[in-house]
């Protein structure tokens, strides 16, 4: 696992040529300077990514105007050319590149991603439908993986050198390096094909209406929000409703959790092994504190800095992290959408998803940096 730390000795040298930034004095000002700089970097990064996004999709094969024209329409060649010109004008494709780029940036900031080439619906609207699924899946998974990884890792560090330790480390190494789609396939093979206990695709039973989250029984009779529907159901229906979602989400969550916890376990173990040899831990033990108190209240608290950073960063990858798992389980989230969009050359969708993912990652990285700066008093702001 990559440990995103802020290297010491960074700031002093930089200050020499970053004189255009506000010079600061004193500790409090140092923090402000640090935050300003990080935010500035985040914006520069965002600009780079927008530019890259703009360039890459102009390199991809296919002509968007050709996709909008009807090839079976019987018109003369002159008419076709005129039609093409009109479309180009309509979409702004006849402008020079830098104007196109400016238009693109303006649209991104107004959250206007255009229409999906396939469904002809606004991309932002479709995205709002997909995001809850990905957030549910990846949010649950990341929280589970962090909890399991950190707790297990702390115990492992305490019992280092034992059989439990080597078992934990080896198993998390194995799960960490497995191809995640294969893990999913094996679970489908076991739980769907052989045992028939769990479904293998979609987020809810296919009989249900295509709404989120509305079971088919209630769609016609009750109008209003999700909560109203849930409240008006009888207990049996509530159970069925929850069971439908849980049974569909179980295998993807299991797969992703098994895939992700190993990284947190190894990181926690490494950090804890250093912390547990510190003098204050020995002091705490000498005071006669319970081993659990020593481990979680004294050691883990102090070792939690890199863990928080790492968790923050994995929350940043929450939207992009599950293309493969979502494809395996036909999960209707963003990852599966990326895959569909690539297959169908749905460029508007791809560009929008890339942009949103990049923002997510940049914000998470910024948060991690800021958290690090605020929590750790030892840091040199650089």
């Amino acid at each position, binding site marked *: 696992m*990559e440990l995103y730390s802020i*290297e010491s*000795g960074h700031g002093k*040298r*930089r200050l020499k*040529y970053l004189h255009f930034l506000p010079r600061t004095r004193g500790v409090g000002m140092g923090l402000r300077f640090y935050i300003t700089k990080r935010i500035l*970097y985040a914006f*520069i*990064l965002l600009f*780079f*990514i927008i530019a*890259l996004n703009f360039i*890459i999709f102009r*390199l*991809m*094969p296919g002509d968007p105007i050709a996709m909008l024209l009807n090839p079976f329409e019987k018109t003369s060649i002159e008419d076709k050319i005129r039609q093409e010109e009109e479309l180009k004008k309509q979409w702004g494709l006849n402008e020079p590149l830098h104007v196109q780029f400016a238009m693109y940036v303006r649209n991104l900031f107004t959250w206007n991603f255009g229409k999906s080439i396939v469904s002809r619906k606004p991309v932002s609207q479709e995205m709002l439908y997909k995001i809850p699924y990905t957030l549910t899946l990846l949010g649950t998974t990341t929280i589970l993986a962090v909890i399991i990884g950190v707790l297990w890792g702390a115990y492992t560090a305490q019992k*280092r*050198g034992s059989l439990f330790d*080597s078992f934990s480390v*080896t198993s998390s*190494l*194995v799960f*960490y*390096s*497995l*191809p*995640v*789609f*294969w*893990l999913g*396939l*094996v679970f*489908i*093979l076991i739980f769907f*094909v052989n045992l028939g206990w769990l479904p293998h695709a979609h987020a809810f039973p296919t009989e249900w209406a295509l709404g989120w989250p509305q079971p088919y029984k209630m769609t016609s009779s009750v109008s209003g929000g999700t909560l109203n529907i849930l409240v008006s159901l009888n207990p049996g229906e509530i159970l069925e409703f929850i069971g439908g979602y849980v049974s569909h989400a179980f295998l993807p969550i299991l797969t992703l959790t098994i895939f992700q916890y190993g990284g947190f376990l190894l990181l926690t173990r490494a950090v804890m*092994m*250093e912390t547990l*040899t510190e003098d204050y831990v020995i002091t705490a033990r000498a005071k006669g504190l319970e081993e659990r108190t020593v481990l979680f209240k004294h050691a883990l608290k102090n070792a939690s800095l890199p863990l928080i950073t790492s968790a923050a960063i994995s929350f940043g*990858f929450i939207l*992009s992290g599950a*293309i*493969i798992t979502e*494809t395996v389980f036909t999960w209707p989230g963003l990852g599966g959408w*990326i*895959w569909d969009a*690539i*297959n169908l050359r749905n460029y508007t969708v*791809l560009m929008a*998803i*890339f942009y949103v*993912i*990049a923002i997510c*990652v*940049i914000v998470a*990285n910024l948060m991690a940096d800021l958290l690090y700066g605020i929590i750790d008093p030892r840091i040199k702001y650089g």
Partner: protein
Amino acid sequence: MMKMATKRKLPYSLKRLFGFLHIFLRNRRGTLGLAIISAFLFIAFFSPLLTPYDTLGRDATDVKSPLSATFGAPVWLRYLPSVLGGIPDLSENQFVNGTLDWNVSASHPSYTIYESSIGDPQTDGAGSLAVSFRREKGEIPHGEVRISITKEFEFPYNGFPGRFMGDIVLCANGTTHEEDELYYEEIPAKPDLNGDGVGNETDKKIIEDAMGSSDGIADLDGDGDVTKLDLGIWLYGTTLAKYRSDRHLDVPIEVHVFLGHVGGETWNIYPYYSPGRYYAPSGFKSDATGKVWIAKSTQDVPALKGWIYPQYGESLTSLINSELGVLRGDRGVFKGEDPVRTIFTETPGKYVWGIEIIFVDNESSDEIVETTLYIDNFNLEIHGTSFGLLGTDQYGRDLFAQLVYGSRISLYIGILTAVLGVTIGLVIGLAAGYLGRFVDEILMRFADTLLVLPMLPLLIVLIYVLGARIENLILIMGFLGWMGFSRLVRSQVLSLRERPFVEAAKAVGSGTTHIIRRHILPNVMSLVYVTLATTVPGAITVEASLAWLGFIDPTRMSWGRMLYENQYTAAIANWWWVIPPGLCIAALAVSFILLGFALDEILNPRLRRRR
């Protein structure tokens, strides 16, 4: 001088290597990783010795000539008890071949059989013979002379075979005469009449102008009169039956290939040629749908379609294939049914397979008439529902061979990607760390930008743009995988450059290149070795994931592609196809990680002290 130095150096470095190995082998996890990697290296180097089969077909160019039935199970599942998941009603491959012990029966003695069996029947498809019919001068025609060449064999399995096929080659030669024959001429829609290369309005006008006359060009249907019918033919195209004079054999031949139970019903097997793709050679008759009929008798099917009039040098191959064939038996034609399930039974039984050759000697002639039919590859391949150690895929290709050869691709991708990524990361890290200032700032900001990008979607888009060749994948992954390592190297170099030995080197006047090469680089090499080992698994897994998503290199079969083809053909229930490739990917990836961790523990003494 130089020579002496190397002479002394070699034993020294060998000693160092053995010393390192001694320490390394004390690390159990590292040893396990090294053992697994060595095993895979061995498999990759000696794959041709481990399996005789090719991953993409019987030979690399031919996907359509597989080894066994499609979706075959492993052979050992037959012998496993059902409780443990065994499938007792599987069958295995059986080849019925050879030429020596055929039963020959004939209705008239005026024939000769020449037999030869050259080469290995298993591989060359030997089993060749020539049957010759001859009527001397002055003899009256013999009518139909039937010669049947059969072979009985036992199919000893408690289950249906997967399919059967035979690449029988027929070729005829003999005395000939001129005869009118019917042939079909296809006129395309809007043909070009005036020779300007395109069929357009001017061609239509030619017909309209010639209406009522007997213009040769405009008379498309050849009835000697240009009418509205010709205009219709020009517009929509048609298939016309026409007569032409052609040379035919004096004694035509009719051939049946048949298969059936001994003492039970036998079935004639007709090959099926899909129209537009495979045409029978011109010596053989095919009807408008492209079917080649080799009929039972002249009454069975219309005479002109039922006869074969092979001419010299032309041959008909691929005579039977249970997946493409049509059956004709005493109860009529069976088209929709699987020929295998119609002919074979689920219990062991004796079957007869053979060929019936009918010389139809009706033409009265005073001359000597003679016809010879050459038959080659007269073998029957029955493909069982099980094959090899791991079964077969959707084309009947051996999965074990794919697994064995897949190790080459995974190692190739993993190692090359790691070398490329680590080299780039090393150069950038050294430059950023040692040169500092603007170089550092620019390179590290660039690295940050790349680190923020969602890697897998970006990879997919780039692969989509550049094409899914494995070399492209290696380049892309190498150029996108250096950032973490360059940061690591940079932070190490930052502390190294402040050390006294660098200062001392500077004091004696060493240049930047010299200091980096002789003083900094050796100190970061331990990081290089560790990162080389820990980068490999990512590359292997990413390749597998991309292949599974469908970005496959069509010329090579990798583990990821095996899983993709399984998914693609919806054969996930064939666990012997799903489990092994994934296990291999996991084993190889984990072993490299174990190796990297072990190297890290040994080369970075900080960790060792902590233990």
